Structures are given as C-alpha cells and as structure tokens.
C-alpha cells in the first residue's frame, strides 16, 4: 500500500507533464518529417523542410526585420528604462510609486486591445507599417519589464557600498560608474535578454502595425500557420525554440529566470 502511492503520483504527474510539453516536443519531432503535409508520425524523415526554410523569402525577410527591430527596441529600452529604474530605486521624490505603476501599466492590458489602440493612433500619424511605429509599439510592452527588472535588481542591492565610496570622496558620477553600474549589470543583462525575447516573439500587437512590405517573423509565421500547414513551420519553430533556449541560458546565468519574470 505504501509503495502504490508514490508510483501512482509519479505516473500521474508524468502524464500531466506530457500534456504541458507535448506540443513543443511534437513540433521538434515533425520538423524532421519528409512529407508534404502534417501527418504524425510522418511517412518519411529528412531535413528537406530545413532546406526549404533557408530558401523561403518571407521567413528570411521577417527574420531580418525581427532581428533589427528587437535590437533597436532593446537599445532604446535600456537607454530610457535604466535611468528611470535608477530614479525609482535609488532616489527619493514625490510620486515614485505612481511613476512605477504608470511605467508598468501597459502589462495590465491585453495585447489585442493594446494593438488596436496603437493602430488607431499610429495609422493617422503614418507610423503604421514603418520601423519607428513598430519600434514604438514593441517598446510599450517591453519597457515595463526593463524598468521593473532593473529597479528590482537595484533595490535588492545594498546601498552601503555606494555610500562608502561617496564618503571616501568619490564624485556621484564616479560612484555610479565604478560601483552602481557593475552591481546592476546582471539585472540589466537579464532585462535586455527578456526584452529581446519578448520583442522577437511579439505577434498580436505586430499584426496590427505591420504592412505588406514590413513584416516580422512571428507575423509571417502566424499567417503561414493560418493559411497552409506543412512541416516547414516546424523547422522554423525548432530553430526559434533553440534560439530562445540559448537566450534563457544567458538570463539564467546572470540572475535566474524566476526572478527575471518578476515572480
């Protein structure tokens, strides 16, 4: 009787885990299919869809756009997000909590509403289907994470070392450059990696602001899945999963995924 319990529990939990992981595992498996359409298990195996992927214009273009976009978004996020996070975590001023609430407010709204709202404002401003428009739209959903992660990282660091340096005669600029910046670097790296992943994967808001000549990889992927379904999407997905996994490793090495997600 004592033995049955744990074994049943293990079997049950394994089954539940299978449900969680099944779609990801099967996407990777079917990417090696040699068939013309989605059938699992496939009739034949091979790398033909990886070769087809390299030749696909839409995906190649989308990949370039998404890569450029995510890089610009991360750079701008850090440029304006880190100073704001520093102010929130290290300075005293009225309305500090309200500022943090305001800067993280976009996370409260569903992306389908946010995407529509951004389209309605960007379209008359001729920002739809342009790089500035896409960058601004992506910053709305990535900047809150950058501010929150960097502010959290800073506020968990003791201020003693900075105070000691200041007492010993270092100027505020030197204290920031030599003490604060190195201490907060892991948090900044985590924030940058997460912002990159979020921007690179963003699909709902992008759907509203992309155009025929400027489209991101997730949007191309979405449209491809919506229309036809052959294993090429699986090959692309496998590449994306590997890329995300390596980005996560960067975050994990610097601060830990759980903390980066703010939980």
């Amino acid at each position: 009787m004592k033995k049955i319990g744990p074994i049943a529990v293990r079997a049950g939990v394994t089954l539940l885990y299978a449900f969680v992981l099944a779609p990801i595992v099967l996407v990777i498996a079917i990417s090696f299919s040699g068939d013309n359409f989605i059938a699992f298990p496939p009739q034949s195996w091979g790398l033909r869809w990886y070769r087809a992927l390299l030749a696909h214009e839409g995906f190649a273009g989308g990949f370039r756009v998404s890569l450029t976009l995510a890089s610009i978004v991360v750079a701008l996020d850090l440029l304006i997000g880190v100073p704001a996070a520093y102010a929130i975590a290290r300075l005293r001023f009225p309305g500090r909590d309200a500022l943090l609430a305001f800067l993280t407010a976009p996370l409260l709204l569903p992306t389908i509403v946010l995407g529509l709202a951004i389209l309605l404002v960007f379209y008359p401003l001729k920002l739809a289907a342009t790089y500035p428009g896409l960058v601004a739209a992506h910053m709305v959903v990535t900047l809150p994470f950058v501010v929150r992660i960097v502010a959290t990282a800073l506020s968990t660091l003791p201020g003693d070392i900075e105070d000691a340096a200041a007492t010993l005669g270092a100027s505020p600029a030197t204290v920031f450059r030599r003490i604060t910046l190195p201490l907060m670097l892991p948090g900044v790296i985590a924030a940058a990696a997460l912002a990159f992943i979020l921007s690179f994967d963003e699909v709902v808001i992008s759907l509203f602001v992309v155009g025929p000549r400027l489209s991101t990889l997730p949007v191309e992927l979405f449209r491809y899945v919506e229309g036809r379904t052959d294993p090429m999407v699986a090959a692309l997905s496998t590449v994306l999963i590997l890329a995300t996994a390596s980005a996560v490793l960067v975050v994990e090495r610097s601060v830990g995924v759980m903390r980066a997600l703010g939980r």
Partner: protein
Amino acid sequence: MADDRRRRPALAAGLSLPAAAAIGLGFLLPVLWLARMSFNPSDPDGALREGWTLHHYAELLTDSFYGELALGSLQMSAVSTLGALLVGYPIALFLFRLESRWKTLLVLLAICPLLVSGVVRAYGWIVILGDAGWINSMLRGAGLIDRPIRLVNNHIGVAIGLTESLLPYMTLSLLAGLGRLDRGLEEAARTLGASPLRTFLRVTLPLSLPAVVLGCTICFMLAISAFVTPRLLGGGRVFLLATEIYEQALLTLNWPLAAALAVAILAMFTLVLVASGRLQRRVAE
C-alpha cells in the same frame, strides 16, 4: 534604508522623463483615443468620421450575435481556466512537496511553454489533434475509428490549446501561494491520525484556496483576451470577442465597432477583478 535615498526630485524627473513620455505616447494616448473612437460613427466605406454616437454600444447590447460572442468567450474562458486548474494544481502540489535536486529543473520544465511562442504551440496542437495528427493516427492504428475525429478548427481544439497556454501561469500562481503554506500543519494533521486524503481535503486544499482564486483570476482574464490560440486552433470557425476585434479592425475595417468591443473586454476585466476581490475576501475568512 529609505532614508539613505537621495532627495533629488529634479534629477529623478530628468531621468524618468523619457520613459514616461514613451509610455504616455505609446500607451496612455492610444488607450484614451481608443475609448474616444468607440463613440465615432462608422462609415460603410471604412473612412474615418468624427462624431458622438452610442450606436456601437447599443449594437453590442441588442444584437444577439454579440451576446452569443460574449457568452462564448465567457464559457471558453471558464472551461480552459478549470482545465488549467485541474492540470496545474497536481503539478504545483507535486513541485511544492518535492525535495530533490531536480526540483529547479522540473519547475522550469513546467513553465517553459511560457517562453515558446503561442503560434508555435498552436501549431504543435495541430500536429497532435489534426485529422492526420498523432491522436487520430493512434486511434486509427488501434482500429477504433475509420474516419478521423475533428479535434481542431472547433471549440474542442481551442479549449485544449487555451488550457495548455494558461497552464504555466496557473502553476506559477499556485506554486507561489503554496509556498506560504506551513508544512507543519499537514504533518500535524497526519500525526494526529488523519488519512492523506483527509489531510488534503481539510488542511491543504482550504489553505491553498486564496492561491486558487488568484490563479483562476489571472487565467480567466488571459483567456478572455486570448487571440492567437483561438484564431489558429479555431480555424476561423470559433468566434470569440478577441477574434472579433481582429476581424472588425483588420478585415472589415470598422474601427469604431472594434474599439467598442475592446472597451467591452476591458469592462469584463473590471467585473472579473471585482468578483475575484470579493471571492478572495470570502476565502480568506
């Protein structure tokens, strides 16, 4: 600690101004404009016209199509939230009780779908549930069916896909809530002779209820506004509020109606939050 902070309002304002401006222009202004747009009359040609009308809200309240849409969204959200709870609770409880060096890895595995694009996971479900998918070929191989059962492009597929996409959020919420549970209470109940089942029903479950309410609230709100999963697994045959916003905004080009639908979703959000707050208080008592 707070007193060590430097009192520098001017510097703080300068440092946070760019970020505040970005969120103001990219978030606050669009949301206000969205609310304003929902009162504009719609033009059959899709042209923008300024004005004030309650036409779209009246349409949402009186047209039975939108009533069914809202009801369908609520039902789908309830089913997938319940599904996520039924799968996520055992996982969270297992992870909470686990004392093993694999614990971190198992927690990561349970929440890793969070890091994989929703489009990719929806595609994964098509591979599993499609007509030539894994389940249908297994059932056919076993001689149980002659013709494939339809598991995607309908409500079943959307419910399964949504359940899976909510799961990481549910597991994380429950895990965080269970973390506050004192394991000594469970041990005390066991020592005093309660069976494992009785311990679970009388001690663990009641103490975890606040976490259950929180997890269900988060998942329900995510489900009501979910778009990618219903669109891809519903195959254009499952109509929900979020898919209708997309339809009206990008295909029919009736922006005022799309804006009114978005406001309706936000109103539902508020109602869910109020209900959840009440439930949270009752559970805590």
